């Protein structure tokens, strides 16, 4: 594959950008939306994996930058699947019983418009990380 012009170079760049997007987002995580999906045994059993995949697809479809990571049990086993959403410079918000429909609602209402949606779980802990 020969690159014959600057335009060629740019289009290849756009094409391969996705390869390292994940890493660039990781470096810059505090400035973009972060979603943590609880993926302990209880979460997985309740379908967290499908929800995680759905969130990734939906975010991609809506064209919003999100970092989706897995995390361990958050302790809300009664409300699985649970996800934690951190908007830039905002406190984390945890949602319980997140089905695909709920996930779509969270993305459309909370992440895009910043409006609260039902199903929020009051955060009962703080993450200790120096």
């Amino acid at each position, binding site marked *: 594959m020969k690159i014959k012009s600057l335009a060629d*170079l740019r289009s290849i760049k756009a094409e391969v950008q996705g390869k390292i997007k994940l*890493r660039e987002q990781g470096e810059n*995580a505090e400035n973009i939306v972060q979603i943590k999906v*609880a993926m302990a045994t209880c979460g997985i059993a309740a379908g967290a994996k499908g929800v995680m995949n759905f969130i990734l697809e939906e975010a991609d479809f809506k064209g919003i930058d999100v970092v989706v990571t897995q995390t361990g049990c958050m302790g809300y086993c009664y409300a699985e699947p649970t996800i934690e959403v951190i908007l830039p410079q905002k406190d984390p918000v945890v949602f319980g019983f997140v089905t695909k429909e709920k996930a779509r609602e969270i993305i459309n209402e909370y992440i895009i418009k910043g409006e609260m949606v039902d199903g929020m779980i009051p955060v009962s802990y703080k993450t200790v*990380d*120096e």
Partner: protein
Amino acid sequence: MADYKMHILVCGGTGCRASQAEQIVDDLKTELKNNNLQNEVKVVTTGCFGFCEKGPVIKVVPDNTFYTQVTPVDVKDIVNEHIIKGRPLKRLLYVNPKNDYKVTSTANIDFYKKQVRIALRNCGFINPENIEEFIARDGYASLGKVLSEMTPEQAIKIIKDSGLRGRGGGGFPTGLKWEITSKSVSDQKYVVCNADEGDPGAFMDRSILEGDPHSVIEAMAICGYCIGADKGLVYIRAEYPLAIKRLRVAIDQAREYGLLGNDILSSGFNFDLELRYGAGAFVCGEETALIHSMEGLRGEPTFKPPFPSVSGYLGKPTNVNNVETFANVPVIISKGAEWFSSIGSEKSKGTKVFALAGKVNNVGLIEVPMGTTLREVIYDIGGGIRNGKKFKAVQTGGPSGGCLTVKHLDTPIDYDNLIAAGSMMGSGGMIVLDEDDCMVSIARFYLEFTLDESCGKCTPCRIGNKRLHEILTRITEGNGTMVDLERLRMLSNTIKDTALCGLGQTSPNPVLSTLDNFYDEYVAHVKDHKCPAGQCKSMMSYLIDAESCTGCTLCSRNCPVGAISGEKKMPHYINQSICIKCGICHEKCKFKAISII
């Protein structure tokens, strides 16, 4: 189609490879496959992360979890715990030595906090053997910009305005060098990359070539366009097999993509690269010696002028720059001279990569803005001195540099300040010494190195250094006199003034700077026949204090030469004629009964 949700970045630098990083990559891939995750999690081998102390290191993104000292045994747990269940594996996390907290993210590790990565921007981030990942990071865009939007003069002006200076140690303004070479009239010119890194303890050039070879290739092409050269040569030592391999892969890929060769990006500009291997002689880092070595001649320096920019390789104008210098160029072109010159100190712009080594907690490769103080580098990034010992000095500039002491700790590091303090930037080796290091022995060590590496062409270097070494040896053996100290200084100054090339002119620096900063230690060796650091063996002996000795026999059981005798529960005794002064007894004794005198 693979749709990766996670990347596992594994350091593939020489250091981490030496501790089984390749095995870890293979095991990770197998383990992911066993769990049917090969299409969700991608394993990427990258260049050096810099945190060599804690290698092999692994970073999981996008959650940025940083694992240190990973072994192949840990692979299963990483996949089961972190990848499948989302729980960071606590036992592999970095522990902050200051408060024993475990730190998950690189953003919270002190080692990385104060660093600004320009030359190392892609090291530990992209796969160096994949040109597409480099292009995704705006690779070759600067070359495209220069070729399509700028005249050579305009591009040179940007480099000049940025204030970039040669990172090989000399600190000559890069833009000026380019300008001089561009003005030399000739049918053929050359761009040369000096990758003959030879300072003891320095490995920044190797790490750049291993971690981001394309950035050097791109910069060489930009330089070629600026000075009017269509041919580039990389002079690299054969002792860097991994760097050579990655550079070869990168050159082949660049050719395949049409980024090297004829009519690059339809601009009519032709440029191609070749590698030349050095046999690892220190003097070949000197540009005239390097050029002779490339020509197939003996690697000996010749007098300047003529400078290589007028008459270099095969008598043609040649622009020689160091690896790290080149690695800065594409970023300067893309972000502009103003951006670059806003970083750093007044006369030294940008950042500098240092190889931090010696008695410091976090050994590794770091990049800091010029003007950062030694204290920040040693205590904040380096995590302080090992085993809670006292800081004594830091050696910078390798065999051409000198020692900086406690009083220099708050000196901002840049070219001019280091020279004013009696040392030099050099290529960026930084060896931290603690209270147990004898400064006379350190000076002698560096002299030994220069003695080995001197090409022998000029008398001051060949014979002068030999004499210096003899005097230093005499002092460390306890046979020195006060006259020797004066001779050291006089001879050093003579060599400095009369040697032919940079190697000889700077070789007495370690002697002079230790004389200046640690004169007391020299005097102690000569007058009191004592080595304050307890390193010079011929001047000391170990003695057991009969009153404190409990006769536990621990020392005699550990003595490798059987020099210690004594009955159980009775004071022991060291036979001085057998003792080799290894210090093991001193270390083992639980009652502090053994003293050094």
